[in-house]
């Protein structure tokens, strides 16, 4: 039954947005958007290395993304502002990745597929990797949900109540690296952060609790995948970017609606 490429594409997108929803909320709340982008940009280097060493793309991207995340964490607080540091590392990783790919002259690779994703080409094996990673990310995030939430609000409260914020940050970083590694096929390295942030940000307007926001993000993510696939089928547009476009439109609509409703309530 998984013969239809549209069905496989839909399932792949579904897996990614479901796992990205609660994780994306933490990326938004903890202001890690740029951190996520930097880690994702490093993924191109991971693609080049895995092709050169003939290991699976998933493993290569995961390793390089994790390395990048650890490097950023280790270098932070050593003289440079975080956004400068991330700007240097993210673009350096992307540039080195692109240069490294150009050395692989004997391997014909479609760079565009890694930069913007190639969701319509998702095979059964890809689907297994995507859903395996998605379940793992969802499991990690939900397992540490309460503690991560407390740590997001206050490190000190978390310490006082016997939690270990450093360990949980590491778990969050690992989850981020996994989602990047599995989503590269769906939306590509340049748009992964969009799938983390936009649905979560869109859900904010109508949420009163963190849980509502995570569920809302999941719903908006699913709607974006469905809308993006439908749009790209009928308008013959690239699928990954189409998904992100739908998510962005939902964000704009919900945020505006939220503003209008609140303004009315205030008068």
């Amino acid at each position, binding site marked *: 039954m998984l013969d239809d490429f549209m069905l496989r594409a839909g399932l792949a997108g579904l897996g990614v947005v479901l796992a990205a929803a609660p994780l994306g909320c933490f990326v*938004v*709340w*903890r*202001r890690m958007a740029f951190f996520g982008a930097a880690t994702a940009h490093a993924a191109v280097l991971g693609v080049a290395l895995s092709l050169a060493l003939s290991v699976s793309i998933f493993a290569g991207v995961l390793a390089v993304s994790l390395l990048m995340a650890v490097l950023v964490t280790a270098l932070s607080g050593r003289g440079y502002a975080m956004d400068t540091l991330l700007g240097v590392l993210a673009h350096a990783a992307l540039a080195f990745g692109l240069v490294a790919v150009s050395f692989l002259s004997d391997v014909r690779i479609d760079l565009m597929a890694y930069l913007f994703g190639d969701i319509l080409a998702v095979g059964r094996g890809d689907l297994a990797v995507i859903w395996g990673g998605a379940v793992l990310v969802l499991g990690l995030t939900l397992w540490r949900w*309460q*503690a991560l*939430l*407390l740590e*997001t*609000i*206050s*490190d*000190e*409260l978390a*310490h*006082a*109540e016997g939690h270990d914020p450093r360990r949980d940050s590491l778990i969050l970083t690992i989850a981020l690296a996994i989602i990047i590694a599995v989503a590269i096929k769906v939306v590509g390295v340049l748009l992964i952060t969009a799938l983390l942030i936009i649905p979560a*940000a869109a859900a*904010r307007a109508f*949420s*009163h*609790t*963190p849980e*509502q*926001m995570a569920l809302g993000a999941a719903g908006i993510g699913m709607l974006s995948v469905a809308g993006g696939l439908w749009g790209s089928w009928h308008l013959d547009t690239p699928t990954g970017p189409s998904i992100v476009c739908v998510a962005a439109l939902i964000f704009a609509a919900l945020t505006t609606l939220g503003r209008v409703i609140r303004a009315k309530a205030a008068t």
Partner: protein
Amino acid sequence: MPMTATKQEPLIEAKGLDVRMGGQRVLEHVDLSISAGEILTIVGPNGSGKSTLLRALIGAVRLDGGKVTHAEGLRIGYVPQRLHIDPTLPLTVRRFLNLPRQHNKAQIEQALERAGIPNRADAAMTALSGGQFQRALMARALLDQPDLLILDEASQGLDQTGTADFYRQLEQIRDELNCGILLVSHDLHVVMRAADRVICLNHHICCQGHPEAVSNAPEYRALFGRYEEEALAIFRHDPHHHPHDHAHAPEAEVEADDAG
């Protein structure tokens, strides 16, 4: 009560704490212990390491020397000096109190009532005023009957009467829960009235003991002498006194200073 048997055993014991930050020694050989039923206040000038000491006691700061021991199963209620909730994080008061453990409706309502903010359970944390926010933090800290309540400058933003009420409330909490209370404060006089023991900190412990003994100690006077006189002057000033009714000599002087 079961607590009386272990009353002599300290809730938290710190020995020889050393903390350096950016090459500066923030804490030097600090020894401290607090027991159940005791109100211990740490006073010290700005930048004397008070907040760092609290953070070291809860394990949020890497120690460069010394050791912190917690009593087994110690439950800490912590009220931080400031808490920033990112506007992107939707959080009602109820959800905040239910973090990380769920409590039933009655428990939440009772906690809010005791904290003086009844009927605010469904308000967004970001919609609370400064005073209400502080009360919500307090309500959460007390929700699970802590063995030790730690407050970092918790009376900040309260006026003089509010501060006095606040410390009376602390004594009530101590008597009800038989918990230890550790607080850091600037409000020297009210603190002096409420505390059982005062530690005067300026990177190291300058002096400590009963409030009266500490306020007479030369080390304390060297640190706070001037500040204390100012604080006392504020206390003695009658707020209901209209300055133009009578021409008081000191006020006349002030006015003369302003004019010149």
